[in-house]
């Protein structure tokens, strides 16, 4: 039996849904960032599966772009998390309720 597009989509949807649950239900900024990372990796599985199914390699290029996007998101998100931790002493997203400069 070979890996079909539907298998890739199923795995991708599962990872994306788990990430979405984490991003929407947790309030620790680190776990929220990890959940977003999980959603992006779920999307990557779908891109690679579609590329394999159609025999092209544009999906591989898109997956690498998503990886770069995830790295940028992690860097900026962690910088915000460190700022939040310095100011409030905890990492709950409630501290971002007031975004005064």
């Amino acid at each position, binding site marked *: *039996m070979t*890996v*079909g597009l*539907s*298998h890739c*989509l*199923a*795995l991708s*949807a*599962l*990872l*994306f*849904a*788990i*990430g*979405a*649950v*984490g*991003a*929407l*239900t*947790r309030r620790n900024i*680190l*776990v929220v960032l*990890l*959940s977003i*990372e*999980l959603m992006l*990796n779920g999307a*990557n*599985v779908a891109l*690679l*599966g579609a*590329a*394999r199914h*159609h*025999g092209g*390699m*544009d999906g*591989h*290029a898109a*997956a*690498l*772009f998503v*990886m*770069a996007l995830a*790295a*940028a*998101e*992690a*860097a*900026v998100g*962690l*910088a*915000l*998390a*460190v700022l939040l*931790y310095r100011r409030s002493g905890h*990492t*709950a997203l409630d501290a971002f309720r007031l975004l005064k400069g």
Partner: protein
Amino acid sequence: MQFTVFLLFGALAVAFALGAVAARRAVRSVACMIAALACLVPVHLALAAPFVAIAHLFVVTGATMALFLFAGEAFDAGGPEDDRLGMNANRLAGMALPLLFLGMVAAPFFAAGAAPPGPVDADYGSVRRMGDLFLTRHLVSFEAVALLLTVAMTAVVAFIRKEDKP
């Protein structure tokens, strides 16, 4: 063989992803996430994407998760926090929306079935093909990603510098 690898490591990735989302301490979340991302490397290899798999291993599982691990250790120093959402409606929406998404994905899954992929060239997924792609069709996107990373790096430095002011 490829299907077995895909199934085994895909299931492990899902299990570790659940652990990452459910763990109470940030460090445990990061540890589970590293395991989940490492399990995705064989999945990428099973999809005939060796270059993406290696990039995923070094960039996402290695470098990015090392940042998360350091941050998690620093944040966990004071013990676990109460991480529950205050509003039940938010939590309900957080559970319902992904379930709705899964339902939407399930329909084409059952409609498409498990059709086998078509044949590919011998150098499919190779570094040469990736290089050709990045320096021809996706050159503008490649440059845009470089710009995005530069902006992100500048933003991080700006955040930290602003905080250092008295």
